[in-house]
């Protein structure tokens, strides 16, 4: 007899070969859980190679998803359920499974060949040697079951095996008592032109679902109720998708054409894929010949009065450095997206890191300040890239938008706004108001120190811009010593003044003043928030503030930092924000750094917060 347990939250990790359709399985479960009303956070983890040698540890693709009836802010430190398609998937992920957790294993993936590829000693099969006794193991020959349910479908064995992930998905749907409807809809859409594949996949999924009812060693079913969420309309969204939609929204709101120029690079390419579908919004995407052409063509588009945007990851941003300097000399709007990954050099292309902050702030020749903002969560990518566009256009400057591999590929439910609710963005193209005989001065500034955007086609405002130092106001070439110093300071002051046009920093959670403030930025938001909450539940005095604006900082940041005895700055790098905070505010902040290509766990952050709290207790 199957019993049903009620749980507040569950972490499932799907793992298998990168060709096993693991990401699809995970995404489908995510969407279904989101539609059901669970709060969710997901984290896909895939190898750098598209099809690494089958069955090897290097080829393991994972998708972790955390859903619950309570607030979920991270994909979870450890999993409750591990679904593995082969031996390598088990070996690579077993350490992340909670004690007593459930393993669903495709036994066919544990034959001698797969065990060898996963580097188990000869004759050792973890499914049979008792080494997994502390877990609940369900060893199922998913390959055989899938093939037998598809017998007579006319599909080749290879094609049938491609539906194994749907069998697994069906079984997991059964475990959590979920409807298969949204996946069936998805399959119909996806294989519109191959009805036989729709049928096979649906059949395999249903077979997996019904297998749950008939399984000999009974499995427990779980009930995870819908979360109590704020009233409103929600959708599930991934970071890169949110970034793309944010750009479209900003351009539409400004009434400008979006020109998105980029060169393919992990993990930023999905933004290009998404944007290329939205030509009916006036979005022009341009796959340039290299990173430099990507940014310089975006500068050309901005010069022409469009919203020029370029995107890359660290290595590509390094190549764009000179052109960013050009854009700031030209004082044209430009949004530069960096979906950060592990560095330096090629580094860890598919892993996450936030080690390009100093590159964004300082990585150019000369005195070259630009605005920098960063997203905290997948859905925050929408808001912060929108802000990047606003600042770029309203302040005539390049703006960096920092995301990273973790939130770019991670997903969460998003209470999406209506178009009408989005902040207005003011675009003022220069008009010819010159008196007869008066010459146009392209570098004349307003009280924000911002110059006009005078675009080709505007009669009478013909002018030249360039990367050579220019005379104040006229924009003519000038090598005068006094003028250069003045221009360097003006460009700096222009960026500093942006602080008057961004929101003040808020304390995300915890007391407004006290013992310990944890100051974060970027994708560490969810784990810091969860850890701080847990630390407070233990009685510690811990507050959390999260920076979205990194240059300039919100005006009140210095004052906030003085309200706490200690400041802890956790970062997925070797200490970057902390350098800037120490430099700017002369505060002896403490760093907590993780440089492993994976996000902080809640547990390690909580431990650090607790240790520090013990030390600063009077």
């Amino acid at each position, binding site marked *: 007899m199957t019993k049903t347990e009620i749980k507040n939250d569950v972490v499932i990790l799907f793992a298998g070969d990168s060709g096993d359709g693991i990401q699809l399985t995970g995404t489908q479960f995510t969407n279904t859980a989101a539609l059901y009303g669970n709060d969710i956070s997901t984290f896909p983890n895939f190898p750098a190679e598209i099809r690494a040698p089958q069955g090897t540890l290097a080829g393991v693709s994972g998708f972790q998803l955390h859903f619950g009836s309570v607030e979920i802010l991270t994909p979870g430190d450890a999993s409750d359920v591990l679904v593995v398609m082969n031996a390598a998937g088990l070996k690579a992920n077993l350490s992340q499974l909670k004690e007593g957790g459930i393993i669903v294993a495709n036994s066919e993936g544990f034959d001698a060949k797969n065990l060898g590829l996963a580097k188990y000693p000869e004759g050792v099969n973890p499914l049979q040697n008792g080494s997994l006794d502390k877990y609940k193991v369900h060893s199922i020959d998913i390959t055989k079951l899938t093939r037998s349910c598809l017998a007579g479908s006319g599909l080749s064995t290879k094609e049938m095996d491609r539906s194994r992930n749907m069998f697994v998905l069906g079984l997991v749907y059964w475990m959590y008592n979920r409807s298969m409807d949204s996946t069936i809809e998805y399959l119909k859409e996806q294989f519109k032109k191959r009805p036989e594949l729709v049928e096979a996949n649906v059949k395999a999924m249903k077979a997996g679902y019904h297998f749950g009812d008939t399984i000999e060693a009974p499995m427990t079913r779980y009930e995870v109720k819908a979360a109590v969420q704020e009233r409103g309309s929600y959708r599930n969204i991934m970071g890169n998708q949110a970034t793309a939609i944010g750009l479209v929204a900003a351009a539409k709101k400004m009434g400008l054409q979006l020109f998105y120029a980029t060169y393919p690079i992990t993990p930023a390419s999905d933004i290009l894929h998404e944007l290329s579908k939205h030509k009916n*919004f006036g979005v022009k995407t341009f796959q340039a010949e290299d990173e430099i052409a990507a940014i310089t063509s975006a500068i050309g588009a901005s010069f022409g009065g469009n919203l020029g945007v370029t995107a890359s990851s660290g290595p590509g941003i390094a190549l764009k450095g000179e052109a960013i300097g050009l854009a700031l000399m030209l004082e044209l709007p430009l949004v530069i997206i960096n979906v950060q990954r592990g560095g330096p050099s090629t580094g860890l292309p598919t892993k996450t890191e936030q080690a390009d902050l100093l590159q964004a702030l300082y990585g150019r020749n000369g005195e070259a300040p630009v605005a920098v903002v960063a997203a905290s969560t997948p859905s925050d990518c929408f808001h912060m890239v929108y802000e990047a566009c606003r600042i770029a256009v309203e302040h005539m400057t390049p703006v960096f938008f920092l995301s990273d591999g973790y939130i770019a590929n991670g997903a969460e439910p998003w209470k999406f706004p209506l178009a009408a609710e989005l902040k207005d963005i003011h675009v003022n193209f220069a008009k010819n108001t010159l008196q007869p005989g008066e010459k146009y001065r392209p570098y004349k500034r307003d009280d924000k120190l911002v110059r006009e955007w005078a675009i080709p086609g505007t009669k009478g405002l013909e002018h030249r811009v360039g990367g050579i130092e220019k005379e104040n106001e006229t924009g003519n070439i000038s090598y005068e010593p006094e003028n250069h110093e003045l221009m360097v300071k003006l460009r700096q002051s222009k960026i500093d003044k942006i602080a008057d046009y961004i929101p003040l920093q808020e304390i995300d959670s915890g007391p407004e003043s006290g013992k310990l403030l944890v100051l974060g930025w970027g994708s560490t938001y969810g784990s810091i928030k969860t850890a701080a909450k847990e630390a407070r539940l233990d009685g510690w005095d811990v507050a959390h503030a999260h920076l979205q604006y990194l240059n300039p900082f919100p005006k009140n940041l210095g004052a906030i930092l003085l309200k706490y005895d200690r400041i802890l700055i956790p970062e997925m790098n070797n200490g970057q924000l902390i350098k800037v905070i120490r430099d700017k505010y002369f505060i002896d902040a403490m760093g907590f750094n993780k440089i492993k290509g994976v996000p902080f766990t809640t547990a390690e952050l909580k431990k650090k917060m607790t240790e520090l709290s013990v030390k600063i207790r009077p």
Partner: protein
Amino acid sequence: MEATKLTPKDFVTDQDVRWCPGCGDYSILKQVQTVMPELGLERENIVFISGIGCSSRFPYYMDTYGMHSIHGRATAVASGLKATRPELSVWIVTGDGDSMSIGGNHLIHLLRRNFDVNILLFNNEIYGLTKGQYSPTSPVGKVAKSTPMGSIDYPFNPLALCLGASSTFLARTMDRDPVHLREILKRGNTHKGTSLLEIYQNCNVFNDGAFEVFTEKSTKKAEALFVQQDKPLIFGANGEKGIKLDGLKPVVVDLNADGVSPDELWIHDEKDKTKATILINFFDDPAKEGHFPRPFGVLYEEMRFCYEDALALQMAEAIALKGEGDLDKLLKGNNAWTIN
């Protein structure tokens, strides 16, 4: 509104021109300013974009919209501008180092995409602004600041490179023949697609006389072959020499001695890619015996779709298929749910 009648003076800026006295750039600037009023363009719709180098100061002296960008990237900047503002007349000014060394990649990709822009490639076979290093078009053996024992870099033949990159318009002209230069500038402007104009330009400081066999009266007629559509290839001090095709092999003939009539000569056809390939490879060292004259004029032209037009078509097609983008629909996505 009636088009304003412009004069060359309207294209002169108030900036002092800072090229070395005697530089070939002066002549090119003058001819461009002379031709501009004849092109039927409004000044505000013209944009000059350059990279870095002596030639790249050009935009500062043209009273149009302009950008002096960074080394090698003018072609890429222009691509973004043209993709988004196809109605503008975009002119790229670049040199041999700017376009074929640091900017080589952008040049070839611009050519294959065939944006409707004009490239004025000032070739002086030397790096001038950095004070005299050899360039990607300097001949082997060139003694320059960085090659005291002579260059061992085999040079590019710019037009052959560009033809290889699927260029749709290739022409060669020179700073010291203003009439020819103006004619080629107008042809370049008329061509729909990327027009690549290689302009031989004398750097009198670091590479004086690099092209003098083509530009000086005493040798010009014998060394420079001015091609014209549907006309036989004839050159020589007194027009006594011609070129005929023996199969695919060009042969120089003496019209007086060899008894060849002009009808038997190679008739120039700008649309013939095979002939253009042969013509463009008349690039041997003029000092050698049995060499060919260097061709000037429009060597090749083909009609091919422009990137910006294809992009505009796709945009229109997307709207026809899906309707104008509805932001609220996009924000909502396909799987939204509501909590009441």
